[in-house]
């Protein structure tokens, strides 16, 4: 019987220049689960499984949180946006909004949100929206327009109806690093720059052949279960396991203005449309979003027409935004999931927000598609239930009741004792306690990010440069 020592793994390296340089390793062993994809869902999945006592590694080909999870608009949904058309999704959102606010308050700003009716058509939507909110149990209150304008002076003076909902802002990097740090503390490895090239069966286990994108060498890891949480790239990863997971990538553009114009998130009161939200993110305002189909995932950029469109739509709610310069725009890719074998069925079920697929071959290979930042923890919980059952592990998920690490990133960094980061530690110590302590938090999270992923690579015997 193989004895597993944390971060000990049997691997083979093949490098034309230095064969045999790696491979000494520590005691041999097998992971319980490998999670391919270091976005927010992959990271929550790693944490969920680690908390059930499983030996798990999260594998990211680039930088954790570097793609979709680092390029959304920062909204922690109240669910109000989905209340009319997708009440199941709306209900999940309000539930997760409350859970995350409890376990990760340090990464969330309780801004509140307004829905604003500007036209008669918007007003006609109010009845349908308010009924749906009541039915689902999403709290809201109608705000007298004069009060709304006192609270948010930049609001269009022509606003006809305003309601307040519990929308919040989630700081993407803070949350991503907090989940990664907590997973690491629970015994998971969080590994960057490792791209899964092939997933194949080997008896009762799966072998994942990875390319180390830092050095170009190959590494093989073994696990009893492999989870494909690669988001828009899930289709490509599935192909590398010899299966199909139909994922069509869509993308959306967001525009950043260098001034925070509101305290609250501002939504247009109408069926969810492109360009109907402005999120106050730190000291900026982010307007979003659009939707278009993407053919080349590696080559997606905002276009001028979209930036102008988003500015016009945002200015309908907040006229002054049109006077601000555009700081920048960015584009985020999201997967459109295909459910069922027939296009007709796919169309009818297209509103379901995520899907977990347990592939029959290779056995032990799972794909998760869909899900949003707000509900990522829930997606991971459902995925964790499926994988744990497959592995014969009876422990339930504990992520909803366990506060995340990362509340004080400066202190967390000290506790990690990452020897390589000693000089950086001193720099961050000098920021703490001074006038830039709050602005320096992002730097502290970046340092934590580096520490967790570097220490994970080292635990596997992989170089960090």
């Amino acid at each position, binding site marked *: 019987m193989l004895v597993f020592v944390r971060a000990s793994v049997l691997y083979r390296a093949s490098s034309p220049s230095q064969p045999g340089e790696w491979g000494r390793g520590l005691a041999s062993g097998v992971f319980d689960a490998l999670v391919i994809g270091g976005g927010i869902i992959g990271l929550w999945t790693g944490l969920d499984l680690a908390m059930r006592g499983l030996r798990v590694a999260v594998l990211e080909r680039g930088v954790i949180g570097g793609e979709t999870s680092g390029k959304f608009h920062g909204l922690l949904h109240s669910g109000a*946006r989905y209340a009319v058309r*997708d009440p199941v999704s709306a209900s999940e959102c309000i539930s997760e909004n409350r859970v995350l606010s409890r376990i990760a308050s340090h990464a969330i700003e309780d801004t509140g949100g307004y829905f604003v009716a500007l036209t008669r058509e918007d007003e006609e939507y109010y009845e349908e929206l308010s009924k749906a909110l009541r039915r689902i149990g999403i709290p809201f209150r109608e705000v007298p327009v004069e009060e709304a304008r006192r609270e948010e002076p930049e609001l269009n003076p022509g606003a006809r109806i305003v309601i307040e909902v519990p929308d919040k802002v989630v700081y993407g990097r803070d949350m991503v690093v907090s989940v990664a740090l907590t997973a690491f503390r629970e015994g998971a490895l969080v590994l960057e720059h490792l791209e899964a090239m092939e997933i194949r069966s080997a008896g009762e286990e799966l072998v994942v052949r990875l390319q180390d994108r830092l050095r170009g060498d190959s590494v093989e890891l073994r696990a009893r279960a492999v989870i494909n949480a690669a988001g828009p790239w899930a289709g490509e990863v599935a192909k590398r396991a010899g299966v199909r997971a*139909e994922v*069509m990538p869509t993308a959306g553009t967001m525009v950043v203005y260098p001034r925070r114009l509101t305290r609250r998130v501002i939504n247009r009161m109408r069926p969810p449309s492109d360009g109907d939200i402005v999120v106050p993110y730190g000291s900026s305002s982010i307007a979003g979003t659009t939707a278009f*189909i993407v*053919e080349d995932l590696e080559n997606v950029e905002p276009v001028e027409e*979209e930036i102008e469109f988003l500015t016009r739509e945002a200015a309908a709610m907040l006229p002054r935004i049109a006077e601000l310069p555009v700081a920048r725009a960015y584009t985020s890719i999201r997967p459109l999931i295909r459910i069922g074998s027939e296009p007709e069925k*796919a169309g009818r079920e297209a509103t379901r927000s995520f899907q977990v697929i347990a592939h029959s071959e290779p056995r032990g290979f799972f794909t998760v598609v869909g899900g*949003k930042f707000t509900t990522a923890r829930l997606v991971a919980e459902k995925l964790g239930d499926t994988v744990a059952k497959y592995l014969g592990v009876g422990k339930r998920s504990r992520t909803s009741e366990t506060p995340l690490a990362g509340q004080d990133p400066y202190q967390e960094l000290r506790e990690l004792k990452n020897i390589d980061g000693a000089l950086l530690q001193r720099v961050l110590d000098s920021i703490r306690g001074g006038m830039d302590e709050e602005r320096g938090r992002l730097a502290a999270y970046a340092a934590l990010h580096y520490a967790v992923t570097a220490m994970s690579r080292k635990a596997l015997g992989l170089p960090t440069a």
Partner: protein
Amino acid sequence: MKLGGELETNEPPERVRRVLTSPEKVATCLPHIVSWEAGEKGLRATFRVNIGGVVEYLSRLTARANIEIREIDHDNIDYVFEGTIARAKYSGVIHVHLDEKENGTRIQWSADVELGKTLQLLSRFINVDELLDKIVKEVTESMIKCVEKT
């Protein structure tokens, strides 16, 4: 992609024809119109279309269209259009035939729509014919309601 349908209204054919051949009236009759600019024989419009659950986080998307109105004869009108939605191109013709009936007008329409490559990719995931049918029907029904209100 070919679509078609039939509608009826209590308005007389001449009235229907007047509305359906006026660029300004056609513009204001498009559903969820955002902005428009009318010319002598056509219009440029930005409007929203219902896309249902195609994209999880959106119910409607903004479309742009250039529409040329051609009066073929007294009873037949062609709308030649081309535009973009979600960075994808589309084009085609909607043919409308007006028939007088007792106390009103029967309107028969047929549409020939061409979708750009990226919209065609959607057909792997959703029933594009069904979606397009819904969109074109929403546009035509909006036009008829408008005729009755004008």
